[in-house]
């Protein structure tokens, strides 16, 4: 085991622990990565080797751009579990530009970005956080006097790949929510010449970003993606199919209100509007913040924060399905449907009565005519 690996650990553990422990932890980490990436145990040594090599050689350059963001993904990144952000930044990659974390400011910061781009032309992993405003020539987000769009254009030729972290960068996210005041879009809508990988989530799970980096370090290629450019290893399953409350769903055991009997038993949150059935993410199995918990475990329904346009599509959050706009008002689907069935039934009944009444009148008229007809051939005598 090379010196580099020990370093990787001692950064986090502050050098207090012996090498044997570090080694064990490291292999455990490689094992977790294998699980995360859906690889068999046989890959663990390969992961370990690749990381060691990466550590000893030139580290891949990362340029992290922030546009219309809330820095939530940056914060999230600092909470990464394995590797920790200290491990990653000091040992595995070179974070050459990141406004929230970097020491340099102003022109010097921009210079650092240019240096990194020039030094790694075509090899830079460009991480983007936040959406890109396109309305009014993009004046809603400028850095160093340039718009987000201008910066994307400047960086694009140097990039190996764009990694859109967070739902804002991936799909436009919050800024794009109706009425999208700034014409915000996701990275995939503006980057033309380079591959884009989406790591949605509000914020993205930091360990998924680490998994992506590890995957790249180990295999020297990007992982398999789904149709929305999300890595399958993290977005291959619905929350609902990995959720620990799922047995309660299948049993038909639900929390019917917050903090009711069901909520206190940890029953399924479906009836409180859980979007787990519509959401692809790894929260339930990977969890958050060193496996402490995840939204559903902590009692709140999943709001589907990693799905495209969830701000408009998944709201209101405490209803399972959105409302339907019909007859000028927003209504629940079932109330609308039920009303229409009722109206139909009444209509049908009215039709039946009306037909019956008409027929009866006709019959009466006929009978009358018949009576009169009977009377005619035999005019009264006398």
């Amino acid at each position, binding site marked *: 085991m090379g010196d580099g690996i020990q370093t990787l650990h001692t950064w986090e553990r502050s050098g207090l622990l012996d090498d044997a422990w570090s080694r064990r932890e490291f292999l455990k980490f490689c094992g977790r990565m294998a699980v995360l990436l859906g690889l068999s145990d046989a890959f663990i040594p390969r992961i370990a080797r690749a990381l060691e090599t990466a550590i000893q050689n030139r580290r891949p350059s990362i340029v992290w751009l922030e546009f219309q963001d809330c820095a939530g993904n940056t914060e999230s990144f600092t909470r990464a579990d394995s590797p920790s952000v200290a491990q990653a930044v000091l040992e595995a990659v070179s974070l050459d530009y990141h406004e929230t974390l970097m020491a340099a400011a102003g022109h010097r910061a921009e210079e650092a970005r240019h240096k990194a781009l020039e030094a790694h032309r075509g090899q830079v992993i460009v991480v983007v956080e936040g959406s890109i405003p396109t309305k009014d020539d993009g004046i809603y987000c400028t850095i160093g006097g340039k718009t987000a769009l201008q910066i994307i254009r400047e960086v694009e030729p140097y990039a190996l790949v764009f990694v859109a972290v967070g739902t804002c960068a991936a799909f436009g996210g919050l800024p794009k929510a109706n009425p999208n005041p700034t014409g915000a879009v996701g990275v995939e809508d503006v980057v033309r010449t380079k591959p884009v990988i989406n790591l949605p989530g509000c914020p993205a799970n930091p360990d998924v970003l680490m998994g992506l980096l590890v995957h790249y370090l180990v295999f020297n290629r990007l992982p398999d993606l789904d149709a929305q450019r999300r890595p399958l290893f993290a977005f291959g399953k619905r929350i609902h199919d990995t959720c620990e409350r799922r047995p309660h769903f299948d049993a038909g055991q639900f929390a019917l209100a917050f903090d009711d009997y069901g909520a206190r038993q940890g029953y399924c949150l479906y009836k409180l509007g859980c979007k787990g059935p519509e959401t692809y993410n790894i929260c339930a199995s990977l969890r958050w913040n060193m496996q402490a918990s995840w939204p559903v475990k902590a009692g709140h329904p999943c709001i589907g924060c990693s799905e495209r346009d969830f701000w408009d599509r998944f709201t209101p959050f405490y209803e399972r399905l959105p409302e339907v706009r019909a007859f000028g008002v927003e209504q629940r689907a079932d109330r609308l449907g039920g009303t229409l069935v009722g109206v139909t039934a009444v209509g049908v009944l009215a039709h039946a009565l009306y037909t019956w009444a008409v027929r009866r009148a*006709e019959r009466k008229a006929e009978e009358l005519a018949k009576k009169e007809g009977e009377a005619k051939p035999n005019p009264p005598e006398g």
Partner: protein
Amino acid sequence: MAERSESRIIYMKVWQAPIRIAHWLMFASVVTLGITGYLIGNPPFSAPGEASRIYTLGTIRFLHFLAGYVLLASFLLRLYWGFVGNRFSRWATMLPVRKWQWRWIWGETRSLLWPRIRYYAYTGHAPLGNLVYLLVYLGVLFSIVTGFTLYAHQQYTPFWRTLGAWGLALFGYNLNFVHLLHRLMLWFFAIFLVVHLYLVVYTVVVTRTTQIDTMISGKKFVFEEELAPEAEKP
């Protein structure tokens, strides 16, 4: 109006077995799907107890999916028979592409709206019913597409993954919207069922034509004088 009891009764073999089978399978599956679907959307229960021993919603969902497959099968059978069956079941006759078909449809609609206008019987489909059935088959297809898209997103084999991705792409990558549309179809069928049953009974009462038994036996009995002038006669 003339004395009805005196007129001649026409007898025809109308619905072939595959049509009847498809119809009743469709009936059974749609009703099952509607009930189980409603329960999936609004589970009205929440029973305490050890979750691992209870499988209420699991069972309901299982029934829903089973019925979903039955619906698919019946739809495929009906689809196929529309190409090879008798003239009453052919898509070629059912599709309202000619002007006179629309004239008939209007004629039947008028007599439903204004019951003073005489309501006639037909040997095959009544023209308006014919149109509605096409719409219902579209509805069935739509439920199948949305239903299987949802279903595909619960299976993780390559086959279902691919199917699910296609399905989702159809709906702007919005799985929640698929749920909503799928759920709305429940009400489409509920409304259809009300109207359908009414009109079946209406036809029986008003024109004294066999209907329900026809869908069982395939044979139709109509009084000749009740037949629409344009209706096909044997």
